[in-house]
């Protein structure tokens, strides 16, 4: 009797079970809703001036919170519709992967809220670091999601790094520019990716 077949079998079983546990909720509605919230939020500073570090950080952290809650509400609706538990092992794994970089981003924002006047002109740097950290979060979650999320996450990481180095080159009102960056990244990019997912996920499920 071949002595390795049993361990090969166990390995195959493990691989298949992991593949089966991949997060299967449709991500298009989540991306689209996040994108539209991001775009709407980026329009707000055009009407109401949000210039201070504290204002910028608090405003975009609130937007992030609303986006996150909306995303989980949409995921829960999908789970209910498919008569599956909302807090399933894949959902838990994705959340656990997302959390550390998101908490780090939250801490960076809170730092600016609390120590507003110790740091000058930090909104651009905060936006850049949020993009990079969000990219890290997506990259970590991508181990349990379809491949596209990994590329999307890495694009955010690279964009964040590029913005960091572009900091000295930004002319004029950096906070206004930072609002536009947030709107473009968390709004426009999400809508574009959500639109792409909307069509590809539908085709895959058909």
């Amino acid at each position: 009797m071949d002595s390795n077949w049993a361990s090969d079998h166990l390995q195959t079983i493990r691989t298949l079970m992991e593949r089966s546990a991949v997060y299967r909720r449709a991500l298009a509605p989540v991306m689209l809703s996040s994108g539209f919230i991001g775009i709407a939020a980026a329009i707000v500073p055009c009407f109401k001036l949000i210039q201070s570090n504290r204002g910028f950080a608090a405003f975009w952290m609130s937007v992030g919170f609303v986006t996150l809650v909306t995303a989980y509400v949409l995921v829960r609706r999908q789970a209910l519709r498919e008569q599956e538990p909302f807090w399933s092992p894949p959902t838990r794994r994705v959340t656990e992967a997302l959390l550390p970089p998101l908490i780090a981003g939250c801490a960076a924002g809170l730092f600016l809220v609390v120590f507003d006047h110790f740091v000058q002109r930090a909104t651009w740097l905060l936006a850049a670091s949020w993009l990079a950290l969000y990219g890290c979060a997506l990259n970590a979650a991508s181990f349990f999601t379809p491949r596209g999320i990994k590329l999307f996450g890495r694009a955010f990481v690279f964009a964040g790094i590029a913005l960091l180095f572009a900091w000295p080159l930004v002319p004029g009102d950096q906070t206004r520019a930072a609002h536009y960056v947030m709107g473009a990244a968390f709004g426009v990019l999400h809508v574009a990716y959500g639109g792409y997912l909307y069509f590809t996920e539908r085709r895959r499920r058909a």
Partner: protein
Amino acid sequence: MNPEPFLNLDRVIHEKGRLAIMSLLAASPQLLFTEIRDTLKMTDGNVTAHLRTLHEAGYVAFTKSMEAGRAATSYALTPTGRKAFASYLDLLEQIVEQTRKK
């Protein structure tokens, strides 16, 4: 080497295709027929035949529903199927353990 664990392996599960289906279902509350087929890259006929065998053994249950105006069949492990799969894994681990001791 003690051949007993090998002889006790459940023949219904031991077949490669059925084992793959059982593994997928063990990690998910339920899966659509198309999800099983696409994940394992099997033909419709193959998946149907294996699922029928597993259903006849009482290891798999199915539910039919309408999804976006189309009929969809979902499959899930029954408690008997879950128990049989766990026993199968136990036996495999025993075999691996025996091999290590040799």
